[in-house]
């Protein structure tokens, strides 16, 4: 550090130059060995700021690339699960052949069992995790979004499972008298069909007749509303029809047609009696029989689907169950709590599931790839499978066949391909995830290209060009050798050496 020379025989300037050359020689050797132009901040000179900016940019791009590879892994897992779910859906759709009881009702036994195992698989798939991260619970990725299937079906302790809830719903829809919560009364020549004051059971939606002699009034009055059928003179003639329409709990429509006959009435027939009162009495009996049959078959199926819709709640909905006991006279639904009902889904509940999980994959580019098990497509499949899975169709039960065919027709309608266009369907989710994947793919390519460019630029700034350095070393070596030689020669040239 000291600038004042205090050594004996201070170095001559020539020697100082040689020292400087030697230092430069060492520096060049370091550059050649490290391949870097500068070894300190100061040596970098005017490139410093540019270098910093490049490094920062590349570090950021590295971060994006890492995010992209993580996201791609997750998207692949999602894709696998989604295609498996799609297969399950089409299998379930294929199994739903209305009226196809098979030889000695073989399908009666296998269909619910198969539905049960598909249900089990669907719930398991929805609990898929990628490296400990659950994929189908929106941003609640740290816990299983869906309870396990046997617990959902059978409940745990005081918490009721779907079987119990569906059973309660069945009781509530059928009513104690199995008339689907309808009341049938007669006063002389008039038969009144009225709803009970309840949300359960069948609802009257209309009545028509082909006879001018039967006076029908459309469902009205109340609440609860009622419809009437009045017979008078002249009496209806044989073949006259009365058609009553019902809305079932799952929203489907069913009709009962009663035909007037002069002989002994069979199924769906009423006898034209001696007078209006007698005819009305026969009509009452026939109506009652038909309603009960409808209730014990189709209504039971519809009830199962309604129970499934209430139990497997969708986005923003609560789990609803029959407010009871008593169930067969229950009038309304009540929200199930986690204390008394098995809540099947415990993940995030957002109206926009895709945005619950996002990844920044580029400057200003974010991809959303969150999926919630309570999106429409998933719950439609789950509800359908669950409704079928809780059924049993014993051969001994005369209602089995009709129940089976009404189950299957609903099953087919719910799983129809046309549903794919609806938002939140499995197909729609798959497409949206596919879009995210193609976005990340395109951006990853861009990053790779950009990174390479930046890397080149950094290389140009930082890398020491080997050829230039080698040349400089060569030149320096020559100069250094020449200087050594000259210095050595000059040191010999002293008068002292020539004195005697």
């Amino acid at each position, binding site marked *: 550090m000291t600038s004042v020379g205090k050594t004996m025989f201070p170095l001559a300037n020539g020697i100082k130059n040689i020292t400087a050359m030697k230092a430069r020689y060492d520096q060049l050797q370091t550059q050649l060995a490290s391949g870097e132009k500068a070894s300190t901040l*100061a040596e970098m*000179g005017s490139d410093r700021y540019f270098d910093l900016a490049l490094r920062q940019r590349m570090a950021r791009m590295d971060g994006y690339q890492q995010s992209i590879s993580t996201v791609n892994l997750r998207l692949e897992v999602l894709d696998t699960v989604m295609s498996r779910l799609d297969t399950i859906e089409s299998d379930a759709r294929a199994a739903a052949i209305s009226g196809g009881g098979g030889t000695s009702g073989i399908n009666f036994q296998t269909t619910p069992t198969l539905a049960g195992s598909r249900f089990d698989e669907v719930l398991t798939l929805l609990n898929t995790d990628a490296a400990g991260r659950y994929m189908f619970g929106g941003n609640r990725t740290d816990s299983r979004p869906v309870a396990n299937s046997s617990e959902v079906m059978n409940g745990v302790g005081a918490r009721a499972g779907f079987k119990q809830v569906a059973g309660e719903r069945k009781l509530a829809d059928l009513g104690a008298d199995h008339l689907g919560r309808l009341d049938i009364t007669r006063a002389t020549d008039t038969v009144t069909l009225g709803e009970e004051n309840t949300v359960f059971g069948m609802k009257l939606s209309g009545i028509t007749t082909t006879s001018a002699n039967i006076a029908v009034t459309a469902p009205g009055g109340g609440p609860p509303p009622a419809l009437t059928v009045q017979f008078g003179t002249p009496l209806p003639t044989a073949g006259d029809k009365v058609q009553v329409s019902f809305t079932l709990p799952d929203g489907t429509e069913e009709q009962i047609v009663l035909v007037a006959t002069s002989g002994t009435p069979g199924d769906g027939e009423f006898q034209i009696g001696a007078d209006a009162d007698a005819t009305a009495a026969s009509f009452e009996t026939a109506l009652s029989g038909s309603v009960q049959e409808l209730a014990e078959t189709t209504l039971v199926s519809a009830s199962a689907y309604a129970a499934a819709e209430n139990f497997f709640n969708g986005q923003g909905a609560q789990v609803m169950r029959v407010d009871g006991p008593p169930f067969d006279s229950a009038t309304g639904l009540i929200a199930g709590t986690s204390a008394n009902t098995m809540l099947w889904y415990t993940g995030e509940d957002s109206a926009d599931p895709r945005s619950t999980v996002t990844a920044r994959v580029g400057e200003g580019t974010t991809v959303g790839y969150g999926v919630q098990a309570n999106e429409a497509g998933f719950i439609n499949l789950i509800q359908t499978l669950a409704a079928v899975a809780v059924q049993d169709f014993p051969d001994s039960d005369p209602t089995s066949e009709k129940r089976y065919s009404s189950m299957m027709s609903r099953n087919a309608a719910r799983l129809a391909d046309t549903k794919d266009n609806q938002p939140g369907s499995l197909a729609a989710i798959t497409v949206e995830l596919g879009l995210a994947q193609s976005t990340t793919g395109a951006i990853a390519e861009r990053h790779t290209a950009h990174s390479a460019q930046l890397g080149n630029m950094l290389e140009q700034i930082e890398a020491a060009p080997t050829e230039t350095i080698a040349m400089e070393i060569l030149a320096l070596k020559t100069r250094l050798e020449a200087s050594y030689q000259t210095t050595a020669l000059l040191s010999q040239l002293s008068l002292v050496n020539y004195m005697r």
Partner: protein
Amino acid sequence: MGLSVTLSNALSGMRVGQNALDTLSNNVANAGTPGYHRRSVSVIDSLGVNSTYAREGQLSRAFNQSLQAHYTRSTAESGFTSVQASFLDRVQTLFGKPGTVGSIDSAYNAFESSLAAVATSPDSYANRADLVQKAQTVASTLNRLSSDIQSLRQEIEAKLSNSVDSINNQLQSLEKVNLRLADQGIDTTSRATLMDQRDRLVEDLSQQMDLRVSYRGDGTVSLMTRSGVGILDVKASVFSYESAGALSAASRFSPNDAVSGVGKLSIMTPAGLEIDLVKQNVLQSGELAGLIQLRDQQLVQAQDQLDEIAASVAQAMSTNVTQGAQVTSGPSNGYEVDLADVRNGNEFTFKYTQGGAEKTVRVLRVDDTTKLPVDYVDANGARVIGLDFSGGAAGVASQLQNRLGGGLTVSKPTGSTLRIMDDGVSGTTDMLSLSTRTTSSGLQNGTLGFSLFVDTNNADFTNSLDGVGQKLGFASRISVNASIVADNKLLVQYTGTTPLGDQDRLNQVISNLDDMRFSGGQGSGLSDASSRLGGTVADLISQTLNYQGNVAEAAISNNETQQQTLAALTQRLDSEYGVDVDEEMARLMELQNAFAANARVMSVVQELMDSLMQL
């Protein structure tokens, strides 16, 4: 005229030759002695009673006063540049080359990447742990750099103290040399030796400080600094250095002795006058000035820049920005915002156009009213106003209205809400935005901002101006919040029930790092505008590295130039003062011949005398 004359002439020639040989041998012997000036003997032919004979004249010593003055000045310069270069070189080595392990930019880039990874997988324990570790690396890098810089300052203090001791010794020696030179009875050889010693001492002293040297006729010198403070005139002044003990970032020079946190360098003149060399800015060059400048400026700047980085990275994590709600009243438009969460040191910002020019005003909450008034323009071009918030929103409104004058109307509509309206009808002012930047006050109070980086005792960093200001020395205190180290789920959960997959908190932090712009404060007494930083956290880091690199590069190249100048001068000195052995040898031969000739003359005289006697 006679033989005796010839004999005495020859004798005088031999005596002169003898003396010249003495001097010559002295020259040859000291050819390598540093600070030795070549001597020579002049020969005079004297007229005797009846003869002329040779007699040695004055012993002269090679000396060139103007060259010496130039040299003295140059050594001071090179003392200054070499001490600056060597310390600043160390500073830039501390900061490290970009991209190397331990450099602040690598630590920050790694932190940012880890943040992105956690934002993609907030539920991964490993990712979160990695983020905490990266955050700790950022904090510890800042701590390390900060403590390294302070230990450099400490080293400078020690060096100053050592220098003062040696300066005092040299001054005392010089005082003694002066006294002896003033003695006329001293023989010429000792005189030349004393002068060599004098010049060596002056040379040493001039390396320490910039001197003006007056050479007197009797060979004594008097010394003054270039700024005119007498250091030696017959009697020497005494330098003294009072060390301030351990230095921290907050220990800074102040003209007020009671406040100044650094060592005090002063001089006591023989007349008993004490002068503070730093306060009076007496030293302009030389090692002492270089050291003082490093201690009080360059290293302080480096610390300021680190503090700025620490403050900005802490604030990017902990700041919640709340946009004001738009309000319309008649023709005028404006915004209102709640000031309840604005903590000491926090701010609200509004933008408006006046006559078409867009203006930004940042209003700081300053609880320590001794710091007021605060009103300056920051590195990003925004006007910064400090206000006392103790009077609630109404107090803020009236103070702000006073500062702003007309154009905008500031009011308190209700509670702690502040409203700023433009003039509406005439349209010369238009409000564009109003927002608060507040420091989150808890880790799980539902706000997305969180104090990942904290001050000592896990205290939130709010950038308060109280006392010396929280920012000062923050780089040496910054650490990762202990609660987050203990439970890294807090990186994600902004409420007790936030799902672990939630990305909101991390996304806000990332966008703050990308978009939030910070700017250096008023600059604690620094006049150098180029050292002020402004921009995002990454910008601040790049600017700091670039600045430090530049400063070091400039100092190093400056020093190289100075050393070359000095080398050229030294060469001149060498040729003027140095002993050329060849030249001395040639003279030796001449002297030898002259001696032999004189001897020959004597022997001829002898022969002649003999012949004469035999007659």
